[in-house]
């Protein structure tokens, strides 16, 4: 392991952070083409110690992004393909009786990885989904009365097909907000798609790349993110946004205090990624849609059916202080 086991004692050079972040972004950009903003947001999500939900149609590179993140950040990686017959034990693991020493031995499931890709999480039954979500929340799993700590850092990147597709169990609102961000990738631009077609296979590229940073450095980056300066006027702005979501007739349920904490954490991480000296209003605006979008419920009478439009409406209605 590295020198200095606890983070507080490791002297961390800001320039080192800068370099590390730029390298990670550059490396991810070579694999996921033309999605620089989404890459920044995904990185910010992990730096804010948040879990990421990627929601889009199949084939838009959700899995590739998750794999690339694990690879570039040097994290151990497991993929769980969620299906309708997936059981909680398939995620967490099982205790198996060992003939040899007459005891139960815990066989860890795929959740015991630093970055877990929960692919097509809405295809599994609510039971399996909650096993995953509990693990995300607690950072540990309990099997047969024994508590097993999950590795650190621990991230879940879940992907989900938009819920209007057949045979899915969309995550309920209460569980959606376990995810710090919900990203949509969207179609690539024509140039990027051309580069994708003419370029080499993404899977082979993934196996070729090396980790850019070590997990310890990642944790240092996470600490740096929480230490980003946040000014009074910016807190005012966040509060004004939150208040607006609670008072607007277009929104049925506004942001919860957990929602405001998520906004601040994500904005700080984004400020770190963007190399801002403090959290700027732009950081809040940049993460607002992905952080608040899945936490807001439009009112039935609202003209804004789509969470993205709703979030834009909120941002366009609240003055920056």
């Amino acid at each position, binding site marked *: 392991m590295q020198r200095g086991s606890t983070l507080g004692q490791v002297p961390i050079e800001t320039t080192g952070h800068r370099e590390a972040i730029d390298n990670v972004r550059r490396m991810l950009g070579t694999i996921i083409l033309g999605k620089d903003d989404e890459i920044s947001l995904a990185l910010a999500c992990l730096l804010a110690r948040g879990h990421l939900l990627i929601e889009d149609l199949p084939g838009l590179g959700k899995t590739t992004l998750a794999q690339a993140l694990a690879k570039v950040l040097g994290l151990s990686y497991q993929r769980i393909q969620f299906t309708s017959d997936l059981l909680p034990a398939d995620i967490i693991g099982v205790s198996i009786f060992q003939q040899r020493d007459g005891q139960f031995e815990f066989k860890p499931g795929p959740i015991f990885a630093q970055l877990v890709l929960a692919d097509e999480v809405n295809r599994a039954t609510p039971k399996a989904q909650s096993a995953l979500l509990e693990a995300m929340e607690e950072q540990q799993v309990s099997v047969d009365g024994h508590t097993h700590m999950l590795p650190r850092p621990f991230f879940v990147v879940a992907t989900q097909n938009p819920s209007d597709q057949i045979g899915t169990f969309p995550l309920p609102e209460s569980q959606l907000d376990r995810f710090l961000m919900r990203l949509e990738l969207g179609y690539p631009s024509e140039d990027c798609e051309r580069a994708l077609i003419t370029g080499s296979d993404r899977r082979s590229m993934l196996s070729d790349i090396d980790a850019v940073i070590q997990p310890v450095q990642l944790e240092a980056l996470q600490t740096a993110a929480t230490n980003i300066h946040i000014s009074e*006027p910016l807190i005012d702005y966040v509060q004004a946004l939150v208040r607006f979501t609670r008072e607007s*007739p277009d929104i049925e349920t506004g942001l919860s205090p957990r929602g405001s904490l998520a906004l601040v954490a994500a904005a700080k991480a984004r400020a770190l990624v963007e190399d801002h*000296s403090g959290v700027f209003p732009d950081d809040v605006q940049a993460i607002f849609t992905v952080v608040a979008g899945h936490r807001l419920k439009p009112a039935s009478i609202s003209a804004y059916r789509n969470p993205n439009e709703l979030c834009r409406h909120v941002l366009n209605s609240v003055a920056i202080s």
Partner: protein
Amino acid sequence: MAKRSGTDGSLLHSLPWTLAALTFSMLPHIPFLPVWITVAYLGCAAGRLQIERKRWRLPAAWIRMLLALICFIGVLVSYDAISGVGPGSALLSVMAALKLLETRQRRDQFVLLFISIFLMMSALLREQYLWSLPYLLIALLLTLTAWLQMSTSRGAGARQAMRNSARLLLYAVPLMLTMWVFFPRISNPFWAVPVDTSSSISGLSDQMSPGDISSLSLSNAVAFRVRFDDVIPEPRQRYWRGLILHRFNGRTWSGSEPTIIARDDRPVEYFGDPVSYQVTMEPTRQHWVFALDIPYQWSLPKTIIGQQLELMRTQPIDQRTTYSAVSYPRFKLNADLRDYSRRFHLRLPEGSNPQTVKLARDMRAAAASDEDFVDAVLRKFHEEEYFYTLKPPALGRNSIDEFLFRTRQGFCEHYASAFAVMMRAAGIPSRVVLGYQGGEINPMGNYMIVRQSDAHAWTEVWMQGKGWSRVDPTAAVAPERIDAGMSAAMFGAAGASWGLVAPSEFLHRMRLTWDAINETWNDWVLGYGPENQNAFMEWLGMEKPDWQKMMLTGLALLVALITVISVLLVMRYGQPAKDKAAVLYRQFTEAAGIDPYLGESPIAFAGRLGKLDRSVHDAASEVTERYLAARYGPPSASGMLKLQQSVQRFLREKRS
């Protein structure tokens, strides 16, 4: 032509509120409105709600026109008039009912809510009781809530809307108080609304027949309230003199008109210590102003003193009126009586009540003097079988004869009438006085209540050397009535023997307490007229207050208050105080030539600005960068300095 499309249910959440507000404002009018209007309103309200619920169509324009015409004619027929409080509120109610039938969008409900406010105002024209204030405040709160409900698209926030309306009302309170205190009061404002004369008021009328006053004796209604400055006279001295009647037709006394009596010289001399007091009269729609005996001074404009020294106002008292007066307990009235006057006060109708006339002449012949004769008659009432009762038997044409010789039961008017006739028959000038006798001290407010049941009739006889003096024959028959007063006698055995039914003591005390509270309200709020206002202004230090000064002061105060309230509101809801970086950045955006959009971030703004004007692109980016660092980054003195420099550079570049 109105579009004929079905309703879309969008009013479902605001319409019930509007209806509630409207109904609440209409409620005080309903007892006074013809029943068909209430029915029409309820029908329209229920119908409109159902239309919205079922997404039906609204009635066609021609149906609404027809209904409007019918209702207008209905009001005209019901009231025979179109102006005044009654027809006015009826028209408002009908308009509200019909407007419901063409309320298509949210904003159509504005009209309904305006009508609701008008209805509240007209309720105040009708009556201003103490409880009207909280009631109308609730109605106002409801109307404001309906207003807010209508203005937001969400129905769920009713409690929030109510809280907001309460807050709005609270902001308005200082403004309201200022206007109330300073708006110049005029004694007869041009905006005074003609009083609804259709409803009847009980009280003394300008003539007296047997049975007139006894019919009042059961009325608990207040005639007037009196506050004495220091001494409160004994009950037997409390004769509130009102009308003087001198013409008798054998049954009815009349002739209160002041002008027909010849002027007598030096009518009155006053003795003893004066009694000063304030009277607050309830409206009577009559001209009579009541004072204790003979008033010496009084403070009521447009009031004259008649030849018999009774007070009269040149216009009827149709609202609560307060005046102060000074009376002397002893006086000598018309020590000399001219022949004309003397003859006038001796007239009796030819041939009526022959027995009484004969009896009087016999008794006078038997008496040594006029005084002895008066005593003899009073003794007769006292010692013979005469009864004082609230329910005297009916009398015919020769009422005095029938009363004196047959029925022998009467109320004060019977005794006063009989006594005056006997005096006249015996050659002593006499007349009947109508007024109130007694009054009850309200221990809760330390003032006196004189009720309609205290109405009384007595006589005045003229004797050489003494002038007109008061003789009350009722005192000879029922001394308790005079010594204790009607209200006190009510609880005694005497009252029961007259036919009075006493309420429970507790109820009576409650009534007195309520009256005291109301009296305070009347004194302090409703009684704030021109005089009180002038006095209050002088107390505030305004010299010679007139309406211009009050108006100016009121306006100045209003402006000041609105400023203070606005500042408070801005402090509460407005932008927080800007720090230095924000001030500098504001200079930059103002110089930039374009304004940032609401919610536009500094970086986005700089981008937009740079795209519009390439030449300032770099300078704008620099300002933005430094502003963000200075304002949102970790605090540093140099950051602010750098921002200042770059803003100044931007301003310079922009100028050149």
